[in-house]
């Protein structure tokens, strides 16, 4: 009886170990994470407008149907990334993601940015060069540091009325995604 109880306790401890392993290894093993879903979409340094969410159709990224989305994929190996453009006078936000889907940085135009988006993404080496003033950047550039070289930037724009959606999407498609020259 005591021996069976010891095996039960051993099972509980082993179960907790399995649980910890599952939680820690899942991010690396998951095949349908954000990076996998976005990997096949768009090209580097070119804004991609997400299709509007349609009734009954799959919505794997769980996009808000009230918003319009654009994404830029950046490879920082070719230099610091920049996403810039002028957006309509409505709510918009921007978020920088790493390949695991973790949000490295996010903000909204309510934080005093106004209509102009000018965001720079730098890897640790480029950030060091920036601190040493070896990279020239424009005044007002919003600086974000990324640990990795593959990032994607998502801009969310909220049209006040559904009828304005196409015009707002057109504005989003004019975003400029590029690598800065170093």
């Amino acid at each position, binding site marked *: 009886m005591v021996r069976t109880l010891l095996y039960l306790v051993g099972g509980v401890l082993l179960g907790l170990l399995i649980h910890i392993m599952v939680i820690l290894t899942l991010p690396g093993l998951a095949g349908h994470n954000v990076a996998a879903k976005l990997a096949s979409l768009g090209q580097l340094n070119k804004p991609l407008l997400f299709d509007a969410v349609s009734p009954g159709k799959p919505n794997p990224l769980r996009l808000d149907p*009230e918003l319009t989305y654009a994404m830029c994929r950046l490879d920082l190996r070719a230099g610091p990334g920049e996403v810039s453009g002028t957006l309509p006078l409505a*709510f918009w936000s921007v978020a920088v993601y790493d390949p695991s889907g973790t949000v490295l940085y*996010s903000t*909204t135009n309510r934080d005093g940015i106004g209509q102009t988006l000018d965001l720079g993404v730098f890897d640790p080496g480029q950030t060091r060069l920036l601190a040493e003033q070896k990279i020239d950047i424009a005044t007002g550039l919003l600086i974000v540091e990324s640990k990795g070289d593959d990032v994607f930037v998502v801009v969310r724009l909220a049209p006040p009325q559904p009828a304005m959606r196409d015009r707002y999407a057109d504005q989003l498609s004019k975003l400029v995604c590029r690598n800065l020259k170093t």
Partner: protein
Amino acid sequence: MRFLLNLLLMLVVALAIGFGVSWYALTDGRLFGAVQIGPWLAWTRAGSPAPDPYTRAYLARNGVLQLGLGEGMQFIATTDSDGQPLSRACRYRIDGNTPTATFWTLVPTAPDGAMIARADGPPGFQSARIARANDGSAQLYVSKSLAPLNWLEITGDGPFQLLLTLYDTTVFSSAGTGDNSLPSIIREAC
């Protein structure tokens, strides 16, 4: 023989606890990183640059494009305020105020995330486009059958969920007013 039985018992217990607790942690999540307010559940660290291991696993499992902490917060309700699963056969009233936010959206979806609102109607509610009472509160109805005030028609059968997304919100932040109450979801008729 007894040794083998004990070993089998240990393995069964280990697998049940290991995978069972993991499934619970990433589905319900209340003890592991998610916050529940009434029927609404949110993973508050999901939009953080340094999510905890449970939140990181939740993001990997769901693969959704998470809002950044600076952008807003999303709450999901799969049950009404009495704990009953949301069903498209019933009419629900969503009643009350939301925390401070620039705007919010409320969208009903199928469990897999597909939209279930009527195809030629709005996909959900947007806070700037609803009728409100004098005190700012709003009564929203989600159902397949006609309802008064702010009504969103849904289609299909089976369970569904409600996604409440607060944009540019102070909820859970130290800058907030401390009022993190969310609307109730009341089942009226089935």
